[in-house]
């Protein structure tokens, strides 16, 4: 059997992917948008819906960033509501391990897993910044170097909580009056540098045992973290070469954690533009890029890289001739891409200028070229072929698709590309499992204390 493709849908978050100016673009907060998006994904037999999270509104130059979609729901709450309007779709939520406590997150995911009949998944992210910390009672206390260590122990602690109930405690025998088999279910005790907690967990074991674990970190530490404890990686490497390099690297790390290569799925985020022909799709893709990078947005990107305000800058002219301001203080706050820029801004600025010169490009045109080109562009036939080739070539195990129109952007993909993948025998025609783990091809978790279930290949 050919390697099977996994597909998922990312409800677009707060960046410039979404072309909100398009008349077809709907609400990013009304429940109906989420419902329609999820229903479309389920119609396409997708594994799961994915939600990002950001716990402080982004700022630039000391002001709330106003050019992208702003505003989103609470992750747990919206996923629980989506469980009511879907039957099979996995519900993957990003939850920060820095601004939460293990007991609470563990009970929320266990609750979501119960309420969805085994469809919960957690994308574990870490954060350290005091900027976001200002919204939380415990503040931004974490040193950057501690964030993975805290995330690791947070995960370990959450696992101990999920495993504190074995799954056979509830007897509920009306005749004898015995509800529990054991007097102290859920007992746990955990002490380390970050958490010193003990007591009884109050959510009995959920259908999956615990949520499916996603990880998105790209650093060496992040990759090790994922290889050690994640079920799937949400990566950003959607091209063939980069995808294969990432895939090989991360899968290669699994043996040192005693894990099999089928125990971790690599699922890059991907965007797409469909057209009746490849030429039409390319034309639409160019237009979408122009809309995603409005003149105002282009200016903000350039300011982020140059790390300074450029009040009278003309984005239709050349890039700034001077070098970026190198500083630990960034004008952009709450944005991961700005931190990427800050790694070596002078070199990156030189690269942008070189591209401008080579292509005779304006500042805005450079931004259009270097940020967020779509992953899949073409007719349905072309996209189905390309996507399948990438998966068969081990550049990925599947893709998490981010449409540029909410909520209907997924519809053409589901209507046109999914049937082609099904015809080729590389994509399911119906859900086969009852839990998200099943649908992802991950072996069920044994009960704590039992021997690990036989592992099945995905």
């Amino acid at each position, binding site marked *: 059997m050919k390697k099977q493709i996994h597909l998922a849908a990312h409800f677009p978050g707060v960046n410039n992917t979404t072309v*909100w100016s398009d008349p077809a673009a709907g609400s990013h907060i009304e*429940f109906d948008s989420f419902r329609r998006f999820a229903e479309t994904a389920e119609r396409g037999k997708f594994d799961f819906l994915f939600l990002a999270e*950001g*716990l*402080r*509104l982004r700022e630039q130059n000391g*002001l*709330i960033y*106003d*050019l992208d*979609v*702003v*505003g*989103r*729901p*609470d992750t747990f*709450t*919206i996923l*629980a*509501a989506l*469980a*009511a*309007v879907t039957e099979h779709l996995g519900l993957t939520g990003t939850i920060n391990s820095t601004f939460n*406590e293990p*007991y*609470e997150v563990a*009970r*929320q995911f266990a*609750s*979501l897993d*119960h*309420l*969805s*009949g085994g469809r919960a998944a957690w994308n574990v992210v870490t954060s350290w910044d005091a900027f976001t910390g*200002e*919204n*939380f*009672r*415990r503040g931004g206390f974490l040193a950057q170097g501690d964030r993975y260590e805290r995330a690791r122990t947070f995960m370990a602690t959450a696992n101990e909580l999920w495993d504190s*109930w074995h799954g056979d405690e*509830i007897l*509920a025998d*009306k005749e004898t*009056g*015995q*509800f*529990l088999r*054991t*007097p*102290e*279910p*859920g007992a746990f005790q955990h002490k380390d540098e970050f958490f010193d907690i*003990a*007591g*009884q967990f*109050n*959510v*009995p074991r959920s259908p999956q045992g615990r949520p499916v674990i996603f990880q998105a970190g790209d650093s060496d530490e992040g990759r090790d973290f994922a290889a050690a404890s994640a079920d799937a990686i949400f990566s950003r490497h959607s091209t063939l070469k980069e995808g294969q390099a990432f895939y090989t690297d991360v899968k290669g790390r699994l043996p040192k954690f005693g894990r099999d290569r089928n125990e971790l799925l690599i699922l890059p985020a991907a965007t797409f533009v469909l057209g009746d022909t490849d030429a039409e799709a390319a034309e639409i893709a160019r237009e979408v890029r122009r809309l995603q990078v*409005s003149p*105002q947005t282009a200016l903000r990107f350039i300011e982020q890289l140059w790390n300074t305000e450029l009040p009278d800058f003309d984005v239709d002219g050349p890039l700034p001739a001077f070098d970026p301001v190198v500083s630990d203080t960034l004008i952009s706050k709450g944005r991961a891409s700005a931190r990427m820029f800050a790694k070596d801004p002078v070199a990156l600025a030189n690269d942008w200028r070189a591209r401008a010169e080579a292509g005779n490009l304006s500042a805005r045109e450079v931004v259009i070229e270097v940020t967020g080109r779509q992953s899949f562009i073409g007719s349905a036939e072309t996209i189905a072929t390309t996507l399948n080739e990438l998966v068969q070539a081990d550049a990925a195990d599947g893709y998490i698709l981010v449409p540029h129109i909410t909520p209907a952007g997924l519809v053409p993909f589901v209507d046109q590309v999914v049937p082609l993948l099904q015809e080729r025998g590389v994509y399911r025609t119906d859900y086969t499992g009852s839990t998200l783990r099943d649908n992802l091809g991950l072996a069920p978790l044994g009960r704590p204390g039992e021997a690990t279930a036989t592992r099945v290949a995905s």
Partner: protein
Amino acid sequence: MVPTSTPLHLAVALDGAGWHPAAWREPDAQPQQLLTARYWTGLAQQAERGLLDFLTIEDGLNLQSDDHFAPDSRTDRVKGRLDAVLIAARTAPATRHIGFVPTAITAYTEPFHLSKAIATLDYVSAGRAGVRVQVGVRSDTAAHFGRRETPPLRADDIGDPGRQQLITDYFDEAADYVEVLRRLWDSWEDDAEIRDVPTGRFIDRDKLHYIDFEGRWFSVKGPSITPRPPQGQPVVAALGHAAVPYRLIARSADIGFVTPRDTAHAAEIVAQIRAEQATTGRAEQTLHVFGDLVIYLDESESAAVARRQRLDERAGTEYHSDARSFAGTAAGLADLLQEWQTAGLTGFRLRPAALPHDLTYLTEKLVPELQRRGLFRRGYEADTLRGLLGLGRPANRYAAA
């Protein structure tokens, strides 16, 4: 006092298999289903058929125990529960009118998270969300979080001055907590999303506001990541049995749940809360005071009393709740509610002793009885919970007049 014909409000308090500790052993109980969406959806739909204003869902950050302040090792009680906010969110899309008021614990959780969770519940229910805040002062709960020391409390030393100060502090913290929830709900003005193509702006950032809350226990910057919810301000409720919580109700809540012993006691509690309400400058605002009652309803009083007795025998002890119990017929309960209403209570939160039995009687017997007496709605008259409670949609505190 003369019975009034002012319509009253009705809510049902859902918890596990019902409030009686032996409820899960009743013939129609579904003790294996307590952690399923289907169970909660069925209850919510039943409550909605009875045209109830809202349902509440109990919660706690510890395993249930008979002792209010400490864990126990009993194996004959329902133990284990799901997060109440998530039960509400999972259930709300399967209903259209009834409000959802899940319990949230204020002592350990983040107000920023809870604010957006309740705002989101308001979005997924199209304006039917509320939250019941509970302080959750238990040393075993504190140990689950490890971030703050809470000395063990016991029922018999609760009057001790040191304990009283601790309790006062926790309730003051809860008041700060509600203030943060409310400011965050207002931190976006209703028309902040503009989608102005010529200027490329999705929002008008002048309509987003830092809340800059700084209190004794925490500070929160804001604004929320979630836009202002449909109701503007979801409904806030709190349960109280004494002066300190009454002050929280008066200062911060839209609904107080109270536990009177009788009509005179109800009048006393209402007077206390109204006085506090005036002191905090909220005299002009609608503040509901609901009486809580544990209910055992049957076709005859003797059947209800016998059922209570059977439940008590099975539990091995007489069940005493913080709220008064009523065992009898729907007509008898209607008489009692009508009498208590004269004390100034504006509604009732009924705690079914056993589910689904007492909820079914509530909706199929009590409600029609109250309707006959002109005391309860014959159809949902509003689309939002605030609307059902006559609260109106509040202006945003940050919007320029």
